[in-house]
């Protein structure tokens, strides 16, 4: 395993951009910020695989794109498989001497739908087979590009186009989200030696996790929470603030799993009540106290599952 060169401060982050100005993602788009930071961390020797989703459509419409490195489209279903094919092609062509290239960083940049729902099979198989690919799940907690519909990552209680609140279903979305880290890095995919959660609100941490994932020989997984002003209904300037608040309230946890060992990247001393987070976003505007309590109970249970020792707000 190569050692990753770590970035210590914002000032140390590389100046060079590989995700350039000129894309029609919404103003304040969290996934766009993730793309920029990931591209910055991975550098020139990188190939991106971009399955259908906001980060395909909003970046490439009009026969162009903002990447200074090679990028290819994949279907929303098959980022993992296309990435696998690219990886093995490079390995074999280099081995046979057909090309002189250095083995590139291959990064699949898939949405939550393209990672954990319709793209799950291909992602899982890529990780099972052990291809040298970094799979990034940029999580905006919905099928955003089709107009914000519920996905397995949409939080309990969020309104989406397919989960509108109404007298019969007052809490809107009824299910609790999947746990991608448990699915991909919880021991079910033994070839995955490195997995981490990250957030656009913590850019240095995110960039370092990208580098660690890439330094890993074989597959690595990164689950990046990316607030989406349009889908979560908040003003565009609050993207980073809401990302931080998610961590402060336990709606998002920041940790790494390296060889099965959990390491907390951010250990909150105390969790703020989840209500503080919910208040910032229109998608939760309809929630009644009993729903908020249910969500708080879910956060509290997650804290215990993850083994985090922190005082908990009461789940009324």
């Amino acid at each position, binding site marked *: 395993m190569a050692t990753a060169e770590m970035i210590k401060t914002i*000032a140390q982050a590389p100046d060079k951009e590989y995700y350039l100005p000129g*894309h029609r993602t919404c103003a*304040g788009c969290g996934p766009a910020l993730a793309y920029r*930071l990931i591209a910055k961390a991975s550098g020139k020797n990188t190939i991106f695989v971009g399955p259908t989703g906001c980060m395909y459509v909003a970046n490439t419409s009009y*026969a162009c794109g903002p990447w200074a490195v090679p990028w290819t489209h994949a279907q929303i279903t098959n980022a993992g498989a296309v990435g696998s094919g690219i990886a093995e092609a490079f390995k074999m062509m280099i081995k046979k001497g057909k090309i002189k290239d250095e083995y590139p960083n291959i990064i699949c940049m898939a949405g939550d739908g393209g990672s954990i729902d319709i793209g799950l099979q291909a992602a899982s198989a890529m990780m099972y087979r052990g291809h040298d690919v970094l799979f990034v799940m940029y999580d905006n907690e919905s099928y955003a590009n089709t107009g914000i519909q519920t996905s397995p990552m949409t939080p309990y209680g969020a309104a989406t186009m397919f989960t509108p609140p109404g007298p019969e279903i007052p809490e809107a979305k009824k299910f609790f989200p999947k746990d991608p880290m448990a699915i991909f890095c919880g021991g079910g995919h033994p070839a995955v030696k490195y997995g981490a959660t990250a957030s656009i609100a913590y850019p240095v941490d995110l960039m370092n996790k990208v580098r660690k994932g890439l330094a890993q020989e074989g597959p690595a997984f990164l689950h990046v929470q990316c607030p989406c002003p349009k889908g979560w209904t908040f003003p565009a300037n609050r993207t980073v603030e809401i990302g931080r608040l998610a961590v402060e309230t336990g709606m998002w946890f920041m940790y790494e799993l390296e060889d099965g060992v959990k390491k907390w990247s951010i250990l909150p001393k105390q969790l703020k009540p989840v209500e503080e987070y919910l208040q910032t976003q229109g998608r939760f505007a309809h929630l009644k106290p009993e729903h908020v309590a249910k969500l708080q109970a879910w956060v509290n249970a997650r804290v215990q599952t993850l083994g985090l020792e922190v005082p908990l707000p009461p789940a009324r």
Partner: protein
Amino acid sequence: MSKTYKQVPFAAIVPSPTVSNEHMVTGNWRYLRPVVDKGQCTQCKTCWIFCPDACVDFSKDEGVDFNLKYCKGCGVCSSVCPVGAISRVPELDFDE
């Protein structure tokens, strides 16, 4: 009547841009322009790292500057500045 179509490259494969993507200029989305008070700015680069559109230009000599050709005016830079050095000024207040 003949309709005009646009030339499309082989398999729609296009060269990657190097500095910015000229085909999607987004500066005209902006209705609030970020303006930095260089006197207040501590050059911490927080605004620079958080711009989703890579529109905060930074140099040691010049400090913070904005790429107004692409800046969407989202205000993220202003919100993250620890010292409140970036204000958001309505576009209509500017002449050009």
